[in-house]
């Protein structure tokens, strides 16, 4: 009895049902309207292991892993630079209002600018030689850095002012205030920024490769698209989405590890 109850109450059941409904609709729709570019659900699922497991189906998986390596290289470097620059800058403008007043306009512009439109300019100036690594890295930085700046700033802002007052009362200087109050206090928001920034960085990576510089995963997507190979195309899209989810989940895990005092769980973005 209680087992039945527990199964009925678990979200896993409802998630599975939702997935089953989605898969059935997909399968039936594609079976009734045959199309070269829209594969059936089962074909797509069958293509995933072919792409992922080495030696399962010729050298296909080698192509995928190559593409993953190429794309993620730029992602890693670009994201590391974003964190290294964005967090300190965000913290500074959070602490010092005057800098912020003047930086606000630029941050606003950076927030609304569709970075995709900046890509051509970078391609023109930096070129696309050697897989266009510098171009891709700079773009990923442009994509990700705003989130890190804005969230780090918010992190400083939402620190209880009485904590800073308390520290001053007990004789803390600016350095101690940073080390003991401002940095730990803004860490949860910084981690939120890292998570959101990583999402933007991945988006940036995909956009660059899909729209302008055909390397890595984007190149592979376009190739399957051009070959009208629907099953592989869809399988690859699922793999890319899955990679994004795994990376974000890893940051969430890290978030919980480094800020154990934080009780409120944030909701996803």
């Amino acid at each position: 009895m209680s087992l039945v109850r527990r199964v009925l109450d678990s979200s896993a059941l409802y998630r599975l049902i939702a997935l089953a409904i989605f898969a059935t609709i997909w399968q039936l729709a594609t079976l009734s309207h045959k199309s070269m570019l829209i594969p059936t659900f089962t074909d797509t699922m069958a293509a995933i292991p072919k792409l992922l497991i080495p030696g399962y189906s010729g050298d296909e998986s080698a192509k995928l892993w190559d593409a993953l390596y190429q794309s993620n290289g730029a992602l890693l470097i670009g994201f590391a630079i974003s964190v290294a620059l964005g967090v300190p800058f965000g913290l500074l403008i959070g602490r010092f209002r005057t800098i912020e007043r003047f930086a606000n306009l630029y941050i606003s512009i950076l927030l609304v600018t569709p970075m995709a439109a900046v890509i051509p300019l970078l391609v023109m100036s930096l070129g696309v030689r050697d897989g266009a690594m510098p171009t891709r890295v700079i773009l990923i930085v442009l994509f990700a850095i705003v989130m890190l700046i804005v969230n780090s700033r918010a992190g400083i802002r939402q620190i209880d002012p009485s904590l800073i007052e308390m520290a001053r009362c007990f004789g803390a200087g600016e350095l101690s205030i940073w080390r003991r109050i401002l940095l730990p206090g803004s860490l949860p928001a910084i981690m939120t920024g890292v998570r959101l920034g990583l999402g933007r960085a991945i988006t940036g990576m995909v956009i660059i490769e899909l729209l302008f510089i055909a390397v890595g995963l984007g190149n592979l997507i376009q190739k399957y698209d051009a070959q009208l190979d629907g099953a592989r195309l869809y399988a690859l899209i699922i793999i890319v989405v899955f990679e994004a989810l795994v990376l974000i989940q890893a940051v969430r895990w890290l978030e919980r590890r480094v800020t154990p005092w934080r009780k409120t769980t944030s909701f996803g973005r």
Partner: protein
Amino acid sequence: MIEIKGVSKAFPGRKGSEPVQALKDVDLIVRDNEFLTVLGPSGCGKTTLLRVIAGLVPHDTGTVLVDGKPVTGPGPERAMVFQSFALMPWDNVLTNVAFGLEMQGVDKKTRELKALELIEMVGLGGFEKRLPGELSGGMQQRVGLARALAVSPKVLLMDEPFGALDEQTRRLLQEELLRIWEATRTTVVFITHSMEEAVLLGDRVVLMRPRPGRIDQILDIPMTRPRSTHLDSVESSGEFTAMVGLLWNNLRAMHSDVRRARQAGQAAATKP
């Protein structure tokens, strides 16, 4: 001894309106080993007065001397307990209590030993590894109190420390504070908006009035010490009731003054 002479403090008002006179010509002497409570309606400048003594906000005019030395900023001989507790949620109880000593550059071993002693004193023995978020409000303020006492201050500045607590917890902490104070006799300046608390704890009650913030009168509390062992009978005594009644009469008059001023202001504003 704290000597406050002719201290005024104004804060810039919001755009367009005039500055707010938080303190005007305040004279006050806080004696050594005295428990001084400061009472007044909101906006009377009592918290500003405390923050001036703490050195957190500079005063515009006058002098503030602690043991003869002018206050120019926060100093190790003054420690503060905050209404919002102001505990660092990422540090455990032990690290929080040791914070003041850490800022004074005391080495880790010494300061943790001292902190443990204070944690024991406020009745939190066994909780030193807990995070503040795992404690109740009353326990959190015990941590705040221990942290302030850990630096062995000459003056303890308390800003409505029990204002955020429920009645029963507050009573327990009042007893606890009196017990500790009777043992240490540290000079205390205690801000409160509760008449009962002011009378129950203080040797003298400073009554302040708003607009501009200034001292209305200072009352001597005749009840004998120690009080911590029999707070209930102190509270049911005729002296206690009389003191609270006196304070309330004054406060009620202030409140109706404020209301009248507000109505006058409103009438002026609505006139064409």
